[in-house]
């Protein structure tokens, strides 16, 4: 396939990929469709069918109009995201307009540049792993396209040159003096050239990749990497999570990755902690029970949340703890997930822009940040663990208004809230709860709660997500129907039922949504938490008097009681088999996220040691902070009265400047000499004068001066003399002529004048002697010197005679 045919398809691929990447970044695939349709249409209509093409002026006018329209929109909004979206679309429109012009190498190149700029805009929006793969593919295709474009450009150049020559030759206005046609050479590849070319391309691509990776990891960074420009108001999202027991027939499992979780023993990141049981990654508590027809709904408190409801996490001394690092997939939800109870790792160790929202019982990103970026979010927390290597199953209750318990006496408002129940709706459930409660002596809430939890795991219930074969009583409340009749359901049913049972016994409880467990990634050693790991469980308030000693001693409860985690859902076998391919893909995604998109100063320091970073001094010039710090330090040093740097630094700078000046002047002189090859500088003029003066006394001495003091090639005195005589007679040596060529041309001209025929011989004689002196580094013997002198004399005489005649 010829270059001319291949290039449009490569351009189409490049444009499509850049449009796709832009679309992926912006979350809007309009640019992709516009780009692909536009370029395809131009290929068909303009290049193939040749129906029409936009004249340059029309294309320029359209481009200006589109630009004005896009830019004018910038004045109506200050949203930088909208500006970026506008710029991205503008690039695609301009690109499409370009493709409807007559194709030339320059037009193709401009399309490539616009495509590259689309990638830039797409990159600013940050691309996920899939985007990263496309990005690499794009770069490879763009590289090949550039190579083909370069070949195309060369061919076009020759073609245009030939056409211009033909046009000029056929022109009736001006008769051309000559016509030139470049013979187009087909790329007749010699043996082995193609193989070497492929090898060279592979080396080139590998080298480029290696170089860019090296540069990428050595470029100095500060602590925060760019997370993308998308921002959304915090109040608008994250708090409308609810659990509604509707009658879905089938719930499909989703393997969409939600987050990666990694644990390690604090102080040693290499020492991974594997929890003995699946960790419960708590999201938020749904404590508000609502009834919607025959459906039970759990929602977050509907009232306004005040800034005072957000409190920073406590920093408590704990004996045993692990560091939990969670990387959330891009989301604008401020809700964070964590094993309980979360603590700071240490002040200043890592980002601390999250806090505890009391009414929601949820960890959120810090409220002071009014907007939240839609990007990967990484956070670390300190999680206490038990000596058995398990996370806490309960955590201390902290009241909103100080040290009070969640009891009817001390906090009646919240108690009422957490024990609200319409007993009429759930007769069976209430009845069974009463039976269980009655079996426990001393009304120990802890024991009642655990027995109720155990009730669900006694084998009477089964876990299912598929209701298609289950007969359900639409007249009953869905939870009551579940509990009393079919006894098949998923975690939300179990959690709802248990929470309602607890409430029926006066035990404050709430539904909690979050994630439980995840797939262990063998490559990265972390948990891949997917949508299918979403879970609901129950938190029951345990009065301090009901808390066991164990709970108290291990810090899981305190004097105001504890929230006890209860998970009534029996285990299921619904999880898909996780293949190593899935693991590898997840691992690759996490690598892309951690080491490309989210590479920060600390990660960089881990990858590239500090020494190596210091070695990359040349790259430090790109670090503005480094410049600022270095200059600041230098200023301080210079201001120090007794410091050696006070004198050494200026001295060094002066020396370097002087050195630079000398080098500059030398280079300048060399350049000037090169430029003025045929001219004489002032120094050369003086030397020539001396040589000529000496020549009157002794040609040998004159020649020695010229040779030893680096005279010009034509400053061999007798040759110079000959040149002067000939110049007077009208023969000028052209710069491009060699000395012998000049002699031959003179001889040839002279032979046309019969009387001067002899002069040809004279010039040749002198030139031969000149070659001997100049290039043979030889000296003329007496006889040769005499011959040259005679020849010069004769030459002068004959030329004078000719001039007189």
């Amino acid at each position: 396939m010829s270059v001319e045919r291949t290039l449009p398809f490569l351009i189409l691929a490049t444009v499509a990929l850049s449009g796709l990447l832009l679309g992926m970044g912006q979350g809007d695939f309009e640019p992709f469709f516009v780009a692909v349709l536009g370029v395809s249409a131009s290929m068909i209509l303009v290049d193939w069918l040749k129906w029409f093409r936009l004249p340059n002026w029309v294309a320029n006018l359209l481009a200006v109009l589109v630009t004005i329209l896009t830019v004018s929109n910038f004045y109506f909004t200050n949203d930088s995201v909208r500006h970026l979206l506008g710029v991205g679309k503008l690039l695609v429109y301009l690109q499409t307009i370009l493709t409807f012009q007559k194709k030339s190498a320059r037009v193709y190149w401009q399309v490539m540049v616009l495509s590259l700029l689309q990638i830039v805009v797409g990159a600013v929006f940050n691309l996920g792993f899939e985007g990263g793969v496309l990005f690499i593919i794009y770069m490879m295709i763009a590289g090949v396209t550039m190579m083909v474009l370069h070949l195309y450009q060369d061919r076009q150049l020759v073609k245009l040159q030939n056409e211009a020559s033909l046009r000029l030759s056929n022109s009736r206005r001006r008769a051309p003096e000559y016509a030139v046609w470049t013979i187009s050479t087909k790329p007749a590849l010699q043996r082995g050239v193609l193989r070497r070319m492929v090898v060279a391309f592979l080396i080139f691509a590998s080298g480029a990749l290696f170089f860019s990776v090296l540069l990428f990891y050595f470029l100095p960074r500060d602590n925060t990497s760019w997370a993308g420009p998308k921002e959304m108001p915090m109040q608008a999202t994250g708090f409308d999570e609810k659990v509604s027991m509707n009658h879905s027939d089938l719930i499909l499992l989703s393997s969409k990755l939600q987050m990666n979780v990694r644990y390690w023993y604090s102080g040693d990141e290499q020492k991974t902690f594997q929890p003995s049981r699946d960790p419960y990654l708590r999201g938020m508590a749904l404590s508000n029970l609502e009834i919607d027809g025959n459906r039970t709904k759990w929602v977050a408190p509907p009232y306004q949340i005040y800034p005072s409801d957000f409190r920073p996490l406590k920093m408590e001394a704990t004996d045993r703890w692990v560091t939990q690092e969670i990387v959330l997939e891009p989301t604008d939800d401020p809700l964070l997930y964590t094993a309980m109870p979360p603590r700071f790792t240490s002040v200043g160790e890592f980002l601390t822009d999250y806090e505890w929202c009391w009414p929601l019982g949820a960890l959120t990103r810090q409220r002071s940040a009014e907007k939240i970026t839609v990007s990967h979010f990484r956070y670390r927390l300190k999680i206490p663990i038990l000596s058995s290597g398990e996370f806490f199953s309960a955590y201390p209750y902290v009241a909103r208004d100080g040290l009070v318990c969640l009891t009817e006496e001390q906090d009646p408002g919240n108690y009422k809230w957490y024990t609200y129940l319409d007993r009429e709706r759930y007769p069976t459930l209430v009845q069974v709860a009463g039976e269980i409660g009655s079996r426990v002596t001393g009304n120990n809430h802890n024991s009642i709660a655990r027995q109720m939890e155990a009730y669900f795991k006694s084998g009477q219930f089964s876990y299912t997500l598929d209701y298609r074969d289950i007969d359900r009583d639409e007249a009953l409340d869905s939870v009551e129907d579940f509990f009393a009749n079919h006894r098949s359901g998923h975690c939300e049913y179990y959690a709802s039922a248990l929470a309602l049972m607890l409430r029926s016994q006066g035990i404050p409880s709430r539904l909690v949504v979050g994630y439980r467990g995840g797939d262990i990634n063998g490559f990265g050693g972390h948990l891949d938490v997917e949508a299918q790991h979403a879970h609901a469980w129950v938190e029951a308030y345990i009065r301090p008097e009901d808390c066991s000693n164990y709970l108290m001693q291990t810090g899981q409860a305190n004097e105001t009681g504890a929230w006890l985690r209860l998970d009534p859902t029996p285990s299921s076998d619904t999880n898909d088999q996780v293949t190593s391919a899935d693991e590898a893909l997840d691992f690759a995604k996490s690598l892309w996220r951690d080491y490309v998109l989210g590479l920060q100063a600390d990660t960089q320091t881990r990858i590239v040691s500090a020494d190596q970073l210091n070695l990359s001094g040349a790259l430090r010039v790109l670090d503005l902070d480094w410049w600022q710090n270095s200059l600041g330090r230098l200023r301080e040093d210079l201001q120090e009265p007794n410091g050696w740097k006070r004198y050494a630094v200026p001295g060094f700078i002066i020396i370097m400047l002087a050195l630079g000046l000398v080098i500059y002047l030398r280079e300048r002189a060399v350049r000037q000499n090169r430029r003025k090859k045929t001219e004489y500088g002032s120094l050369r003029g003086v030397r020539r004068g001396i040589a000529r003066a000496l020549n009157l006394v002794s040609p040998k001495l004159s020649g020695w001066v010229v040779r030893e003091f680096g005279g010009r090639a034509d400053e061999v005195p007798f040759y110079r003399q000959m040149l002067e005589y000939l110049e007077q007679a009208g023969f000028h040596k052209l710069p491009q002529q060699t000395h012998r060529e000049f002699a031959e041309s003179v001889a040839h001209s002279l032979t046309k004048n019969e009387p001067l025929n002899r002069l040809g011989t004279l010039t040749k004689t002198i030139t031969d002697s000149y070659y001997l002196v100049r290039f043979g580094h030889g000296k003329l013997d007496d006889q040769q010197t005499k011959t040259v002198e005679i020849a010069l004399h004769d030459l002068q005489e004959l030329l004078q005679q000719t001039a007189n005649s």
Partner: protein
Amino acid sequence: MKYPRRHTRITYEGLSFMSVLAFIILGAIIRQVNLLMLLSGLMIAPFFFNWRISMKMLERVIGVRRLPRMIFAGSPFTVGWRLKNSRTRIPSWGLRVVDRIGRVDAKYLDRVTVLVPPIAPAAETDVGYQCLLVKRGIYQLGPAQISSAFPVGLIRSKIKLQNVETFYVAPAIGRLHRSWDQMTQSLSRGEAKKQRQQRSETGDFYALRPWVTGDNPRQVHWRSSARHGDLMVRQNEQQQDRRLVLILDLAETSQAEGDIEMTLSLMATIFKKYSVGRGQPAVGVCGDQQWVCEHLNGIALAALMEVLATIQPAESNGFHDAWESLVPASARARSVIVISTRSQEQAFAEADLPTFRGKWIDVTREDLTRYFQPPSIKPGEFLNQIAKQLENDA
């Protein structure tokens, strides 16, 4: 061997690429956008490698221009380039030769670009371009440069060759009619007949020369003929030289202004014809340059064509010297053809009109198209022909 120094230049594409790159690097560093950092790395790499590779492509590469020995106006010729890659391991890709062409006194020279196919290591390749020059004169080729922007065209490396060549373009060659041959043959026949009558077998042996029509077969020296593969005859001292004498007399006259080029074209055609045959004529050219030659052989023809390339009419054009030199009184019997821009009377205005056997062609009075068909120089047709030919080849 010393190879020319290599230079580097950023192309238009490279400049726009650099601008985008600078923008990306700035954005990447100021906002710490990792993807942009990666992108900038991926963009710097081609830039860097383009520089190194394009420089490498020109390492130990030499190019030599090749020109035909004689160039005539209106006749296409090929300017050839032989490029040699002296490296032993790496081929040369994406080479481009940019030559310059124009009249030697022109202010600007036109550029001609020739693409070079890949050259394998330690190999050479021939490329070239076709050229047609309309007017006679001195032209210049070069300085040329060999460049490469392989592989992506962002940076172009080049070597400048100081191979400036001036070359002469002789007047256009036409086609002689039969009338010219008839005229010269009639002159020769008359001459031959007379000489046969006068020829004596006596006289000292002078030299061997090729046989010409009219020579006595007895004079053939068979041994030498066998050695040369051509008939050779003995030439004695007394033998009269009966070769043709051709004289071009370009005198500055107002009437002849328009006929000069056609006259020169005719002369070039005649000279070219006679230089390859036997009986090399004696030639004299008189104008602002004078050139006299006893035997117009191939070597002399090249020099003669150079004279014809630049000669102009002159008032004192040395005609009499040439006449005396080529047609001395003792050899007036030679067949002489003078093509002149004036009449014989004007030429010998201050001297007695000589009697000579031959013809005086005054271009101001005689129609030269009687003797030859002047060349029709149409560069457009020539280029169209090439274009069609290449199209057919494709």
